[in-house]
């Protein structure tokens, strides 16, 4: 069975397309996307060499069972929304992903490149399951094409910093 990976938003998908690893990634891990993420945005990426905008047909990947679409319950959604500090604003899709992670019995890690989402994960005690795209690709031996350099927010180093800062903030807030 393939390891499960929840993508909190489309940023990681766009980056995976940008560096040319998406198809190899979905072959190695079971990629899970919350329905609000899946339905809400028409996702595009830019070809680095030409700047050409290309559409990502997530529906095709879902129909080929390369991407699994899940629904978080509204009770779980409301629960995590109450637990998050007011100084944090996430998209409904990200919150639904976190709601699914909180309530699901299926073991899964998740990936994001968003500082606000990392803060949310720490406040919800989910940060142990958080993985950077950099580490994810290494752990699953997904080879990057030549020149496929990840941008800083997808690197482990920055993710670690964000996590540490959020943990300090959580402690200071008395959570």
């Amino acid at each position, binding site marked *: 069975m393939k390891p499960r990976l929840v993508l909190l*938003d489309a940023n990681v998908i766009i980056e995976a397309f940008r560096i040319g690893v998406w198809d190899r990634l979905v072959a190695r891990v079971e990629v899970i996307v919350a329905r609000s993420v899946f339905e809400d945005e028409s996702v595009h990426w830019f070809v680095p060499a030409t700047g050409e*905008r290309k559409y990502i047909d997530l529906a095709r990947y879902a129909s080929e069972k390369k991407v699994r679409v899940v629904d978080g319950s509204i009770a779980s959604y409301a629960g995590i*929304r109450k637990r998050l500090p007011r100084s944090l604003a*996430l998209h409904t899709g990200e919150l639904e992903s976190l709601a699914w992670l909180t309530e699901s019995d299926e073991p899964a890690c998740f990936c994001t490149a968003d500082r606000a989402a990392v803060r949310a994960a720490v406040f919800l005690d989910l940060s142990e399951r958080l993985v950077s795209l950099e580490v994810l690709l290494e752990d699953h031996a997904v080879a990057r094409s030549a020149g496929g350099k990840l941008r*800083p927010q997808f690197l482990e180093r920055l993710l670690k910093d964000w996590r540490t800062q959020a943990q300090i903030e959580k402690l200071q807030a008395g959570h």
Partner: protein
Amino acid sequence: MEKEPVEKAVATRLRRARLQLGMTQQEVAHAVGFKNPQSVVYIESGRQAVKVSELLRFARLFDRSVDSLLGLENDEAAPVVLWRDRGEAAAARAAEAQFIRYCRDYAQIEELAGRRPAPVSLTRRAKPATYEEADRMGEEYSQMMKLGSRPAIGLLSALEEQYGVKLYAARLEGAGSAASAKGSFGAAIMLNCMNAPARRSYDAAHETFHLATWDLFPAERVRCASGERRSRVDTMANRFASALLLPEKALKAELRSRAPVSDWSYVDYVTLAHEFRVSAEAMVWRLVVLEYVSEADARRMLRSPGFCAAKQTEARDTNEDERCTGYSRRFVGLAFECLAKGRISRTRFAELMGTRLCDVDEFLAGWGYGTVEADETQTGTA
């Protein structure tokens, strides 16, 4: 245990929101994209659990937040929006909905950034009773807001930065000329970004009068639809706007440096209006109030083809921000700050700015902001 009450309460709120809009269950089912028109019946009766993705679609249709449908925030009564020359009803309703959504988003961003404006009030205690009092009030506000001798230049930033008025510039087309609103988000003004900057300044000054006298004049006495006879309060707002943008002292000082008004050609009116960043019409009417021009001459002039031709030189000011995104520079700046500090996610930022996730960097560059990770580099944490 908790699951059922949450879903039941949501079902009740969805039903209430639908009824408030006067929509049938079938219409909602169609608008939200349910294949089975009975889905809304089942959801509202609690027989079918609503999914988060569906709740998001309901929220957009009903123009509410997901949080309000979940009962996590108060369902504020619809704020009153006062229009100037309200136009076609459907267009005005759509523009109003966008305006109010923007004001609420703006208030959320201010809260996230910890930058709620200081409570400096524009509100006036006593209402002006005559047009002359409205003139004096305009002069007084021009001084109070420290707008200097060319008030139009600094009016918008003073309103937003000193008085916390939320500014929104929309393509109003047939919806109306401008509008103002008050709600839990504070005070706000909507301007038509299709208008020249001089007209926008005048509209902002006009709406400032309504915000200042919000509790003094009942809404029904204030507004008139496009084509209707202007209300007395609206005329007062025009007098206030003219006096605010063209203070007597500054205007007279400028007039002293020019040939007597009696010798003027149409071009002189237009160039003076340019100097003060107001429209030529506004200048003519202010000169009527200050008794440099008779009302009859003003009417004749405004109708004459020569004046209309001279007025064509009222080109748009190239120094002004020509983007018509609706958002004010302060709003985008605060949202960028929240994004860089991890208070708002990139996806929510894209949603607020009406841009696609993949276009966020380009959007920010267009407003003069660099990559979000720059904040990390500066603080030495990267």
